[in-house]
């Protein structure tokens, strides 16, 4: 019994001292601790406000676009509709799918992005590894050219490339872009080579030496040791190559023209001609005069088309998002 009361009194004493300490402003050390604690708290509040605010700013336009896309065409400039449409309708989406020739363009984009990503991965990993580990007298000189391919604007090169593809008859075919990626000159290949080089440089050289002692040749070292441990770099480069190819409008509008439709070029071509497109498809008359006279109608269609282009990427991003962030953070760009 006595021990229990002792314990309780001890506890009370402790609590009392805690309260006393908390109210004690005379102790300078504790004051400092308190100030620094409150500073840390304040900083974290500021941080959260900034970060959440900015991510709100990033997501807000997206949500608004989606909300506009789901509206009925007659509700386009109804000021009472802010977020949720009064009547959900897929009309906008249907119309823009028709205008974009969406499924064909989506398939083409998908095939083109996949092919060019794979070929970028092959050529850039080989070159990056050669620059990092298989050094000779010339690799350092050649690496200057890698930097040059990054720095020179692609607009200085596209015209002769265009004429060249015209000569060999690859203009308008997806092979032109795939060929360039296969030879390490695709979209931003220089950056990918740089990433691979930095990454392979970061792998300890003792690994190579151990493998060499065990009798592996340089190619075996690359295949069995380097590639499996380069997962982070492969994921980073692969995702960037895929996304950049998907979003690219410059090269595809130049080299693919209208013969191979991808999403971005389809977007280009309907930019000025939604009206004509829908008319030629015979949809214009079906919509009704009230709607088509509305100047915002065409903009809504364009907006919906933009969402349709972005959606597959966004869906894929949500699936690989963890892989992406981790891959980039662990190794990716800095190595």
């Amino acid at each position, binding site marked *: 019994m006595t021990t229990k009361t002792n314990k309780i009194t001890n506890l009370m004493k402790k609590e009392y001292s805690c309260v006393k300490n908390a109210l004690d402003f005379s102790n300078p050390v504790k004051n400092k601790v308190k100030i620094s604690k409150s500073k840390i708290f304040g900083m974290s509040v500021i941080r959260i406000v900034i970060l959440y605010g*900015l991510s709100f700013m990033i997501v807000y336009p997206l949500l*608004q676009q989606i909300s*506009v896309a789901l509206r009925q065409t007659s509700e386009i400039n109804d000021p009472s509709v802010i977020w949720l449409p009064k009547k959900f309708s897929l009309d906008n989406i249907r119309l823009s799918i028709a205008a974009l020739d969406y499924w064909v363009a989506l398939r083409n984009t998908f095939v083109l992005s996949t092919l060019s990503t794979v070929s970028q991965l092959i050529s850039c990993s080989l070159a990056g590894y050669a620059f990092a580990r298989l050094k000779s007298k010339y690799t350092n000189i050649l690496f200057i050219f890698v930097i040059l391919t990054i720095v*020179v604007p692609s607009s200085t090169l596209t015209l002769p490339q265009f004429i060249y593809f015209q000569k060999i008859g690859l203009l308008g075919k997806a092979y032109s872009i795939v060929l360039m990626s296969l030879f390490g000159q695709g979209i931003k290949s220089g950056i990918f080579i740089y990433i691979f080089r930095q990454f392979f440089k970061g792998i300890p050289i003792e690994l190579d030496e151990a493998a060499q002692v065990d009798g592996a040749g340089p190619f075996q070292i690359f295949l069995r040791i380097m590639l499996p441990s380069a997962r982070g770099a492969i994921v980073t480069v692969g995702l960037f190559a895929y996304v950049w190819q998907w979003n690219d409008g410059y090269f595809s509008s130049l080299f693919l023209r209208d013969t191979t439709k991808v999403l971005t070029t389809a977007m280009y071509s309907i930019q000025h001609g939604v009206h004509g497109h829908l008319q030629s498809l015979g949809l214009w008359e079906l919509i009704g005069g009230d709607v088509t006279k509305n100047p915002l109608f065409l*903009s809504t269609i364009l*907006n919906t088309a933009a969402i349709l282009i972005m959606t597959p990427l966004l869906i894929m991003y949500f699936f690989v998002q963890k892989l992406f962030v981790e891959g980039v953070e662990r190794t990716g760009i800095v190595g």
Partner: protein
Amino acid sequence: MKSIFNKLKHINENAKSSKNFKRQVPFKTKTKILGIIFLLPWIIGLVMFFIYPFFTTVWYSLNSVRPLGGKLEIQFLGLGNYKYIFNELVYFDKTFIRVMWESLQILLINLPIILIFSLLIATMLNSNFRGRPLVRMMFFIPVILNSNIIEIVLKGSFSMVFSSSSNGSFLDNIQFENYLIEVGIGQSFITFLLASIARILTIVNLSGVQILIFLSAIQAIPNHLYEAAEIEGATKYETFWKITFPLVSPLFLTVIIYTIVDSFIDSPVMQFIEYSRDNLRYYGLSSAISILFFITNMILLFIIFLVIRKEVFSYDDKN
């Protein structure tokens, strides 16, 4: 029969010796050969898609090049194209020099803002707080959705009315402005404030990859440095300036180069190049503009390189 057997033996020996030969090749030569094999596709691509087009562009820029029925009509002009660009070329009431100067100005204003902003955000994203995975996921959305075509299309038509483009200035509305006027803030300050708010989104959209670069750089910093600093009693502010900043600073050049390279496609100079190529069909003129564009950017990069090189702390020269 015997001779055949002998022959077989001979072949067998040959095979053995060739096997031996394979083994006798020193590791270094093998490495060199493999290096050549690995670099071969890239070198072919470099010659085919980089060096050849580059010099062709330089050659075109000195000529009058016009497409005529599938063939090119080439006539030597000397520096005529360049003279034309500086003296006469006007597109949308703007001379070339003015457009170039404006795009450089935009770039030079954006560059430090992007640099500071992305470093700040990367530092924040690196620290622990609630909901970090979610916020990170959102911050990388601009990296995924950076299609400039969508931006161009939406900027032209939609954002004026609905302000819902990815570049839109949704805070740029009249109610907010009226509120600020009622509060009693000066008009000039309000315009500045609204402009900067509108800019934030542009900057966020432009600095996705840069945030990634800085984030991975910060995560590569060994943790024991921070622990030592904490034991020594350094504040967060001090550790940022004494540890994070110097160790991240080698990447400033990378980020700057990336930002400049990224601005190429959006640059208004591109409109000149495309206009003279697709509308006027003066290929020589278009080449000359792109060469000028290239030279200006190289000069800019070179100046930045000279300035940065002295300031940057170099941690390890080997890398």
